[in-house]
């Protein structure tokens, strides 16, 4: 099981929730929590997923729901 933590930037708490939703729905992500307060995204990947590739997709999906967000990969 692989877990990674990423620094993010987002403006509002609800936007952080939207990012969490979007990341959870991305293929290759088993679970994800976004903390608006610490500006951190914790991602748990599916077995055998390529973290770098998955995170690109996660970022794209998050940008779709919240254009102003950023994930520092």
């Amino acid at each position, binding site marked *: 099981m692989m877990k990674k933590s990423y620094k993010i930037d987002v403006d509002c708490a609800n936007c952080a929730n939207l990012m969490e939703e979007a990341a959870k729905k991305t293929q290759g992500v088993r679970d994800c929590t976004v903390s608006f*307060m610490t500006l*951190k995204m914790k991602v748990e990947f599916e077995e055998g997923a390529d973290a770098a590739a998955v995170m690109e997709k996660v970022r794209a999906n998050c940008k779709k*729901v919240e254009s102003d967000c950023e994930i520092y990969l």
Partner: protein
Amino acid sequence: MNKKEKNLLIRILVAAVFFVPLYLISEGIVVVELPGWTLPVMFLIPYLVVGHDILRKAFRGIRNRQVFDEHFLMTVATIGAIALGEYGEGVAVMLLYQVGELFQSIAVGRSRRNITELMDIRPDYANIESDGALQRVDPDEVEVGSIIVVQPGEKVPLDGIVVEGSSALNTAALTGESKPRDVGVDDEILSGCVNMTGVLKIRTTREFDESTASRILDLVENAASRKSKSENFISRFARYYTPIVCYGALALAVLPPLFCMVTKTGLEHYATIGSLWGDWVLRACTFLVISCPCALVISIPLSFFAGLGGASSQGILIKGSNYLETLSQVKVVAFDKTGTITKGNFAVETVHRSPLAAEKLLELAAHAECHSSHPIAGSIQEAYGGRVDLDRVTDLEEISGHGIVAKVDGKTVAVGNDKLMNYLGVTHEDCFHAGTVIHVAIDGVYSGHIVIVDELKETSRRAIDALHRSGVEKTVMLTGDAETVAKKVAADVGLTDYRAELLPADKVACVEELLQECGSRKRLAFVGDGINDAPVLSRADIGVAMGALGSDAAIEAADVVLMDDDPLKIAKAIRISRKCLRIVKENIIFALGVKLVCLLLAAFGAAGMWLAIAADVGVMILAVLNATRCLFVKNL
């Protein structure tokens, strides 16, 4: 203020400069002759200056099928107002909404900084001595066993043992304790402390990632991602709430005027059909502005975050908002005895009924216990004082919860409690001293007992008192020790109940029994020192490990970690959690209450746009200010 915030502030100021004269003109307070079309067009300038990003986000949301968010609410409401000719109101709403956003961003940024400062224990560098000169390196690169130098005023970067020098350490960032701790050669020191007086040379015992400072930071950062029920409730709530409100507003805009037209009632109040529709659409817009859920969405996580931060500044690490929530519902507290209520520094008081000389008995017992890590074994070895020769010991067998049987110098020595003697079929004599009694049998013959006593911690009594005063109904001590000792300790510190002579496995069963008694509403906390009680810590609703600095197993198993071993912190942790949850509830009730009242007022046409935006921004600001109160827990 960061760049984004400064940018927003400038936009707000520019828009305000345009807006104020325009508003005065439109309200007829300042009379200026203008062609009819100029005013609406000029109102668009401040509107677009201050609100263009909100409009953009709303349209992007629609394109991405994420229609219902607060940007959408604001966009529809303001455009609606402008379209109905309420230019001033429409622009004001956007302007004040952005003022609220700016304030929120600053407040959150400030408490984020406050909390990170509280937890500012991350060391930036380590000094390594090479060729007589000090060299600064990344603490990540220092290998275990290296010698590092810590100068006065610097943070200790890695855990280690002092090899040279002596100093006083400020451990406030770790334990919340302001009294400095003196250290000298051979003392263990933990990363995150600040060296105050002398130069220390330290041999590192852990890598950076494994060091106390890193582990604590990791724990605190993870804490915010374990969300509490209230936080999950709010995010679920926001998901359904916004669409419901939007459809509600739509209904408010369409149904009443339709009803009027179909039934031909109430038409006499309106000059034209157009003004009938205009009135209800404006009400719907006001409704939308009021309904914006920002106050809740921001203040609840902020309260929890501030509560976690405030607790960690007091040396109480709570592993997540969910545990903070559970902690506030604790009604029963179960304690381990040794190391929790008592100091755990056992000392041999006396030896009774021994046919041998006391020294001889201690010598045999010390050898039999040579491999045991139990504090009692340590105290026997200390009382013996001589060197333990491992070659003299063979066939060692430890019987959990009973004691040890081993061959020493070829003789079978059994060292343990009453149960061990019963198990071996040795008749033993009881002792009238209150203390832990360790019987010794040699070759199956009873050979006396060793009486060991353990001191109470100075604050235990006050701690139990404080727990009862903060609403805990039941305090129970679980111990493997004898009935007489347990009874005396329980009476001395004022516990409501105790269970004695428990094997490690019995403690779990006991906790399960207590959990049954608690039912579904009360919560049970177990407090232990993390040695041998990991299963109990994880079985209880809340496991509290105390004095956990440096004990990995306890930090793993517990939900709440007390950095030092002061039992008063347990009550403090509960009080912090109660305060935090009270503030969360206040915010939920306050925000929802005000919104509900204003929504009703708006639906009946009693509240205009100005009241709507004041309610929205005002509630948000008050809720955020209230949330930051969670940070102030020092004197709780």
